[in-house]
């Protein structure tokens, strides 16, 4: 019995942009260090409405002397996140995790390209940090394409600048950076990255990932983290599935929580 459900304490919960929140949760020191792409299931201790816990990707992890802390970057989209947004410093949350698999970083590719849409920046920031630290990639070897609908929806930019020098920001309305879809901005540069020397890490809305899939056309190694409604977070309820090609190329439903949330983009079957 390795895993516990942890009681975390909200150390900060700030609205960093309209509807976007950054929550810092202090946890006991035996909370396992998360790998980039992993998530937690979070709920308010003792509260049964909303009924289900919410899956949120881990944005950062820091270890202190007697405890550790994670940060969660989230957008208020419904009842669950609305209630999370109302939590004040000192509130207790129940956290289970870290859950799911992670982005794989044990490859020797020259170019690292990140493509994030909106809140998709969260796992990719943790990944960029891990790559700098563990795989000793220099900030110059990594290129980040970050897109959002408007400037108001661009979050986490300042922290990202420290990790990644080659940074392209785009918005749908041009209110910040280029006026373009993030996938189009990447497509303009695609010739810079040869498929054999490049790995692409992506996270963002379905439309972005699907468009990326078309652009890459199966030629690039691309790992993408997906989001789905979840009930259990550990693979038991089989509620959060995505259609993929299995080992023999046949369609199968894989669980985003336990088989993902990171998948090879080429595996995903689009409707």
């Amino acid at each position, binding site marked *: *019995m390795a895993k516990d459900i942890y009681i975390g304490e909200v150390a900060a919960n700030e609205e960093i942009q309209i509807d976007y929140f950054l929550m810092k949760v202090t946890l006991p020191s035996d909370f396992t260090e998360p790998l980039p792409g992993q998530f937690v299931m979070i709920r308010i201790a003792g509260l049964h*409405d909303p*009924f289900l816990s919410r899956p949120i990707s881990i944005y950062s992890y820091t270890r202190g002397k007697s405890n550790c802390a994670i940060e969660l970057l989230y957008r208020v989209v419904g009842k669950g996140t609305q209630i999370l947004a109302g939590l004040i410093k000192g509130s207790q949350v129940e956290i289970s995790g870290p859950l799911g698999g992670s982005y794989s970083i044990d490859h020797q590719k020259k170019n690292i390209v990140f493509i994030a849409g909106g809140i998709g920046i969260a796992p990719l920031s943790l990944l960029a940090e891990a790559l700098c630290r563990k795989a000793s990639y220099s900030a110059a070897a990594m290129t980040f394409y970050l897109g959002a609908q408007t400037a108001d929806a661009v979050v986490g930019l300042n922290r990202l600048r420290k990790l990644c020098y080659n940074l392209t920001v785009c918005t749908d309305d041009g209110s910040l950076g280029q006026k373009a879809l993030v996938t189009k901005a990447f497509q303009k540069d695609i010739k810079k990255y040869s498929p054999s020397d490049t790995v692409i890490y992506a996270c963002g809305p379905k439309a972005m990932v699907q468009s990326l899939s078309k652009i890459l056309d199966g030629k690039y190694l691309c790992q993408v983290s997906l989001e789905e*409604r979840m009930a259990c977070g550990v693979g038991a309820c089989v509620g959060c599935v995505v259609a993929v090609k299995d080992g023999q190329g046949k369609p199968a439903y894989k669980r985003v929580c336990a088989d993902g949330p990171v998948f090879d983009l080429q595996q995903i079957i689009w409707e």
Partner: protein
Amino acid sequence: MSVEIGGLKLKNPVMTASGTFGYGEEYADYVDLNQLGAIVVKGLSLKPRLGNPPPRIMETAGGMLNAVGLQNVGVDVFIKEKLPFLRQYDVAVIANIYGESTLEYSQVAKKLSQAEGVHALEVNVSCPNVKKGGLSFGSDPKAAAEVTRRVKAETHLPVIVKLTPNVTDIAAIAQSVEEAGADAVSLINTLTGMAIDLKTRTPHLKNITGGLSGPAIKPVALRMVWQVAQRVAIPVIGIGGIMTVEDALEFMIAGAKAVQIGTANFINPHATIEIIDGIRHYLQNNKIKNINDIVGTLRT
């Protein structure tokens, strides 16, 4: 704390409900499986099933809807790849089985009866999310009895029939499967329901309808357990929105000899263990020596 269900002795009356605990391994990091009364595994069919397209789940007030559609690895892969894991534990394993035809039910039952480490069968005649089989067997007393007979003919294991609440008279179905030889009944499976996305005016579930579970259905489940317990002599296993020890005890007082914990596992992976501990404390505090002494003790 021990109870007996159709000749199968369980160390306590708390089981996991099928479809909420995977094949046991999913929760093995959170729960000491040895402490459970029984593990009821995800429903098994003869061949692997793809299941329904997503979205498959939706949160509702006090519960959730699901339309997973019995995605499972199939009975052969279960026996080869999942059962060895469960055999490491000292816990009763109950295989939940499903078929699109009575023949499929009997074939799955036969295979599982020959496998080492399966202690009972739970016959799912109540899944609301599949086109063939499932609910269509469970909503007709004659069809439910026929499935029961066919399964009984193929197995020496205790046979539990899992009933649907989506019928007019659940006790009539329970009586019918009892006459057909069922060793126990478990109830309730989920109640059919739906939810609509106002922005798009589309159903939240791709399957349009799904099965409602969670504390929202507990009063309905409790009423049905009470009704069935009065009409059959075989053990009744209570299922439906049990979140706490108090919920579990209510079911037992209503007539359930054992209970299954389902959706509660999703929001509190320790729910089963907390309920087992809670029953133990309840018995101690009330100086009750034998758990069976509270079963069906409702005063009306």
